[in-house]
């Protein structure tokens, strides 16, 4: 079984990213949307935590683009049609509301 975890909160001053990274499984993936893309800000604790755990990583392109954040080579930027496909590729979607 595999889960697509979806985050949408800024990782600064919020524990969703860290809690998610603690639970994310080997077959799972993480999709950063909304303010969660701030985790891509280099040189920060969330960025380091993300790289240390190194889950399969997807980023909603529009959110990275809006915030002038680079999507690293280890992640894949996606649009909404790809988001739909991802949600079907993984067995379930766990949005951290």
């Amino acid at each position, binding site marked *: *079984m595999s889960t697509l975890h979806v985050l949408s909160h800024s990782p600064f001053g919020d524990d969703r990213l860290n809690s998610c990274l603690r639970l994310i499984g080997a077959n799972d993936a993480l999709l950063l949307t909304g303010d969660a893309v701030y985790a891509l800000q280099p040189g920060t604790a969330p960025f380091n935590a993300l790289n240390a755990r190194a889950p399969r990583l997807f980023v909603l392109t529009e959110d990275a683009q809006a915030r002038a954040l680079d999507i690293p080579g280890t992640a894949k930027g996606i649009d909404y049609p790809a988001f739909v496909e991802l949600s079907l590729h993984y067995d379930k979607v766990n*949005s951290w509301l």
Partner: protein
Amino acid sequence: MPTSLLVISRQAPWSGPSAREALDIVLAGGAFDLPIGLLFLDDGVFQLAAKQDARALQQKDLSANLQALPMFGVDDLFVCADSAAERGLDPTGLALEEARVLSAEEITALIDRYDQVITL
């Protein structure tokens, strides 16, 4: 086979209606005889702290609803050990005795066992 649903409750008891609304999803599922599990994670573990007094805040005491879970057929209750420890809660002294205390690895496996999940 019915689709199983895991509800992950992450909010403290009185941080708004979230704790109650998570519980309402679980109780509704139980009432319809659906396979439902409930995991208390992060601040959600505070819902199980002992000796709370909701009346001091004129808030609803959710502990009666929590105790009612097995009566609604919801026996799959879980607590995150790390979340409890980080918050200074003794996992053996929590208000829901039926709740199984799980490690991070066990929670990863738990999420895998359910068909769908709602984390609020």
